[in-house]
């Protein structure tokens, strides 16, 4: 199982608390992980990735293992520590996202 931490606003939207645990079929990448997350919590569709381009929304970042993975390619494998469940995959709201 892969551990995922989503921002507080999205935890409220998805009606969950704390870390999420997701099973990812096949190779674990950002794309397959987010596919699994959105399949389980469809209300998150469009809030992390754009509906149409499927690209990360500009003011969100992906962190894991003390690394910024935001600019990794979506089909690159996730770090082994994440796939083993030793480290969480963090979806983080950038400090620049709120205009007011």
């Amino acid at each position, binding site marked *: 199982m892969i551990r995922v931490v989503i921002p507080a606003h999205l935890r409220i939207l998805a009606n969950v608390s704390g870390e999420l645990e997701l099973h990812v079929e096949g190779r674990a990448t950002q794309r397959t992980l987010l596919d699994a997350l959105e399949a389980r919590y469809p209300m998150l569709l469009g809030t992390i990735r754009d*509906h149409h381009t499927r690209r990360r929304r500009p003011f969100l970042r992906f962190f894991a293992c003390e690394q910024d993975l935001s600019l990794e390619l979506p089909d690159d494998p996730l770090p082994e520590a994440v796939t083993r469940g030793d480290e969480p995959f963090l979806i983080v709201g950038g400090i620049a996202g709120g205009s007011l």
Partner: protein
Amino acid sequence: MSGVRVLVGTRKGAFILTSDSNRDQWEVTGPLFGGWEVYHLKGSPVDPNRIYAAPSSGWFGQTIHRSDDGGKTWEPVGNQFTYEGFPGTHGSHDGTQKPWQFKRVWHLEPSLTDPDTVYAGVEDAALFRSVDAGQTWKEFEGLRGHPSGASWQPGAGGMCLHTILLDPSNPQRIFIAISAAGAFRTDDGGKSWTPINQGLRSEYIPDPTAEVGHCVHRIAMHPSTPDVLFMQKHWDVMRSDNAGGLWHEVSGNLPTDFGFPIEVHAHEPETIYVVPIKSDGEHYPPEGKLRVYRSRTGGNVWEALTEGLPQSDCYVNVLRNAMTVDSLDPCGIYFGTTGGQVYGSANAGDSWKAIVRDLPAVMSVEVQTLL
């Protein structure tokens, strides 16, 4: 017992203010959608327990929520707004063409007859409709596809479709307004659209009387006289007596004719309300006095309504979606400010009280009259 439910959208969530028909004692509930910008929320006139809300966020984009119990609980519904066909481009401040790109929902207008049907006005300017209670949305592509569409440009707040008026006497007729394209009307249920801006004059565009390009801030209608429209333009308060075919100015003795909202009394189709703002560069009331102006003559002759409103050192703004009327008798009128106050009057504006004073900046105010 009859009463009212005031729905307030703010920069950091939504609030619900409830009272009995005296409209004197209020209960404040919220924040709902805490931290989200709620540009608008509005209840169905057919089923008052059905409310639609449009929280959005710079981080997480647009969401749409629906309540079926008068705002006690909410369910996220569809948030995918896809422009039909190849989106194309529109004008911009820097003279280049920009691709149409969905940014947010500005206005939700529930159907007058079906609680599962709701219209959404969005930025970049387009009109969508859901017929399944918000689960899925489809664009009226004939509006954005109007030959003038590629020339539309944003106003300072973005290129938003912010006003939707449904004609209660003709289900095929809808009026909308876009900043800064102008007002449009469909007479065939949304398939085709006609600009209705004749008579407007805007000195900030190269051709002041152009067919499109006017920064219309808000239009309003009384349901008993749907051919009579009132408009608060960027500058100028306007009136049309033929469904937008021709407009004439009714600013009259207003201290300034810049402003955002305009509303019509629930029982008097010729009584209208505006909140004059000093200028487009100074978005606050003239002289630091927050005054609602009322005309009982459909414009031109205006009186200042000041009792209960701050008459010194007040520098808030009242945004375009932030004023509304209930249908009790006497008519109640409500507005919210960028300073977080929501003011209410239970006597058609003769006197006012702050229902709540310290909310986040108010984006929208709607009211449901509960019988």
